[in-house]
């Protein structure tokens, strides 16, 4: 007998660290206590993408969304919802602006405007159950491909769909598959890039952890299309749960005859293994990734001879991103035309002519609803940030949105209506990247965030080529001087030239895109950058050498919390009397501001 209620408990890394597993345990216990085991099934699912509201529990088929669940909330939830049949209002989602709780997931702004293709199974399946995946249509596409399509037809379909690489490059997937199909060689590889090194991006993690079969199915279809028998999923070392889930999925798919020898009884064999990264952002670059699989340091090489012809162990290799593969089965199921009807541009004659389908973005920073959002290509930045994202909280003012992680750039308010599209973002000086989108408000300093990204890329540079190794450090150096107010205007002017040189002369994508934060900072926020040097001012109150901390005597209650938290003991004051910061000793660490409950710490 089928259960009448399915309780989906999120087991993504975010919710698990917020103790969603004890919630699951409590649910099972309570359900058993009330004798409801036959009627209510408790399921662990992958990441819902709404981590700030975690631990997240979704009750189906009602579609009711519960946030911030704890084990002690469980008895009441079971009684109200499972027994009495009404939503348990205390744990329903309440919009940040206040107002009535919203019971249904699909009514919540964060979820309403999303269009789930890559994340279609989000929160709906037990990540470790192949049966769940199949029951939602999984592996139908593979069956269709193996029984009724030739490899060339598969390549044509993917090309017609306009699918472009979701890892950042935006290269037309069908074109890549076609080249690899044509390449000479008996042994070809299908590789999945699960390195997801962009800090702040976790869409690939959520797909690998929450819906691993979607990746395997996509890879298998690719293997059939290009003529490959061996595949590897390369997962970054920081994602052990993803490694685990994929390994389980491979085992299950093999048992079901959906991987391995003679798949579905056809003369087509394809096996997949998992390989781990060692901790290097540069291994997201295709040739570095392949070097890593070969057991070598992740130093990229020139790609004048493409990896589709000579890649892993010099053999033809087709490398695609996790999210790209997750899209493939749906395109086969529903057709290229349907996919191409979503998004921008026209790909009927030119695979580069538009951005089709959807993209998963990792929305972070100063935005009410942080998390993973999948939206159609062509949606405006404004729509993502204000509709889906719920806008800027705490009455702060929007300053910039940074897209594409360390490879991307800052976009100002004037570009908020820009449609999200591979080429439009590049034109504006940024890029889509793997989908990182960080919203910055007036409390963030453009110089400081640019510095942050350059420090990251300088650390992660493999060091092989001169322009990236030395050029990016020179950019970082200059940014640090700007942050201190000691740079000259001439140095700021030269920054643009150095950045352009690094872009043009670097060997690989890391070096070529590392200067983007600097270039966009100069292009759109030059005034703020120069202000640091001209007026020794950091308008966001961030750059430590240019700010002072003081306590507003009017609002200070003398609670002494700040004095206690100060690591250099520079705050003095009697209990219940306004406190004072000794500016000479102050290191601008910000501890006082963190603990003050009265917003008395003033930074200028």
């Amino acid at each position, binding site marked *: 007998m089928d259960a009448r209620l399915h309780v989906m408990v999120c087991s993504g890394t975010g919710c698990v660290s917020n103790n969603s597993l004890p919630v699951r345990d409590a649910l099972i216990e309570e359900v058993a206590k009330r004798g409801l085991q036959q009627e209510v099934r408790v399921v662990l699912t992958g990441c819902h993408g709404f981590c700030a509201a975690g631990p997240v529990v979704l009750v189906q088929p009602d579609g009711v969304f519960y946030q911030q669940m704890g084990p002690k909330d469980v008895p009441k939830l079971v009684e109200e919802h499972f027994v009495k049949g009404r939503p348990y209002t205390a744990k329903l989602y309440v919009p940040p602006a206040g107002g009535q709780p919203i019971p249904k997931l699909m009514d919540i702004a964060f979820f309403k405007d999303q269009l789930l293709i890559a994340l279609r199974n989000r929160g709906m399946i037990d990540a470790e159950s192949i049966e769940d995946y199949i029951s939602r249509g999984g592996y139908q596409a593979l069956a269709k491909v193996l029984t009724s399509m030739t490899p060339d037809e598969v390549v044509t379909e993917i090309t017609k769909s306009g699918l472009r690489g979701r890892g950042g490059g935006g290269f037309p997937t069908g074109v890549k598959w076609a080249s690899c199909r044509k390449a000479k060689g008996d042994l070809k590889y299908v590789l999945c890039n699960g390195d997801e090194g962009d800090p702040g991006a976790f869409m690939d993690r959520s797909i690998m952890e929450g819906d691993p079969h979607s990746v395997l199915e996509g890879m298998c279809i690719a293997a059939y299309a290009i003529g490959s028998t061996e595949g590897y999923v390369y997962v970054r070392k920081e994602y052990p749960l993803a490694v685990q889930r994929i390994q389980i999925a491979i085992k299950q798919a093999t048992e079901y005859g959906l991987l391995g020898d003679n798949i579905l009884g056809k003369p087509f064999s394809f096996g997949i293994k998992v390989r781990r990264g060692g901790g290097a952002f540069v291994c997201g670059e295709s040739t570095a990734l392949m070097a890593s699989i070969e057991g070598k340091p992740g130093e990229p090489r020139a790609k004048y001879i493409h990896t589709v012809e000579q890649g892993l162990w010099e053999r033809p290799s087709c490398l695609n991103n996790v999210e790209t593969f997750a899209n493939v089965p749906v395109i086969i199921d529903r057709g290229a035309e349907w996919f191409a009807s979503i998004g921008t541009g026209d790909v009927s004659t030119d695979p580069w002519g538009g951005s089709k389908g959807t993209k998963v973005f990792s929305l972070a920073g100063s935005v009410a609803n942080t998390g993973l959002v999948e939206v159609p290509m062509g949606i405006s930045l404004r729509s993502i940030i204000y509709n889906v994202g719920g806008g800027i909280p705490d009455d702060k003012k929007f300053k910039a949105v940074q897209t594409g992680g360390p490879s991307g750039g800052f976009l100002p308010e004037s570009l908020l209506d820009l449609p999200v599209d591979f080429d439009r973002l590049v034109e504006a000086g940024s890029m889509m990247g793997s989908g990182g989108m960080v919203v910055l408000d007036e409390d963030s300093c453009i110089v400081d965030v640019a510095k942050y990204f350059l420090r990251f890329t300088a650390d992660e540079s493999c*060091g092989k080529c*001169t322009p990236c190794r030395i*050029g990016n450090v020179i950019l970082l150096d200059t940014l640090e001087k700007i942050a201190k107010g000691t740079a000259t205007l001439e140095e700021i002017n030269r920054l643009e030239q150095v950045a352009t040189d690094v872009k043009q002369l670097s*060997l690989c994508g890391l070096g070529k895109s590392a200067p983007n934060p600097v270039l966009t900072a100069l292009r759109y926020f030059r005034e703020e950058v120069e202000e640091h040097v001209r007026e020794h001012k950091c308008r966001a109150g961030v750059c430590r050498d240019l700010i002072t901390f003081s306590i507003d005597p009017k609002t200070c209650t003398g609670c002494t919390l700040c004095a206690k938290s100060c690591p250099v003991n520079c705050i003095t004051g009697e209990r219940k009397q306004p406190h004072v910061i000794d500016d000479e000793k102050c290191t601008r660490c910000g501890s006082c501001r963190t603990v003050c409950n009265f917003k008395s710490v003033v930074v200028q």
Partner: protein
Amino acid sequence: MSEENVGGMVTMTIDGRSGEFPADMTILEAARSMGVEIPTLCYSEAVSQYGACRLCTVEIVRRGRSRYVISCMHPVGPFEVRTDSAGIRDARRTLVEFFLARNPKSPELNALYAKFGGTGKPPYTLASQFGETKCILCGLCVRVCAEVIGASAVGFARRGMAKKVAAGMMRWSETCIGCGSCVYVCPTNAIAVADINSVPTGHVWKHEQDHRQCRTCASIHAQPEYFPDMQALTLRPEGE
């Protein structure tokens, strides 16, 4: 590189002059065959190409679009190559300026700087932050030791600005045979071999070669660990 017409011949223009080249030739080789000079630092015919220094960058123009590529690795093709455009000359100078940031006193690099139009003091300095070093990480020593000598006694370690040339475990090398090939091939004379008490010593990776002279013929210098093997081969006890 094969002399045969592998994959046919290609017509390519270099600095306005047209030529026919085997399809598997690199732009650098093609240029040299026409007497066109392209500067290099990490390139050597004797070893595989690495593509690190970027100094051999040229501009290729195809269907109206221009790209910067490195000539030591990019194959010839049906396009126009510009080895001496203003952009390329600026790029070369910039690269040398980058090298000079940690290697300000190098005579070789300063000569290149002047040659590429650099005047006055080079604009960047990272020496105080990261230290001065003569090594430009071209990797010729690494490749020569691995591919020509077969000893792999030196390699790279770390990444980014911390990247350096080092022996195994970054201490001393057990496999170095003291041949001096690395010294010979280094473009900035970063590897020193000094005679200390008639014992050749390599400095970059703090390798002190303890060579002993075989008393018998006085012409063989070998590391002490090899002595037992050599004795066994020649059947002579040590000291003779």
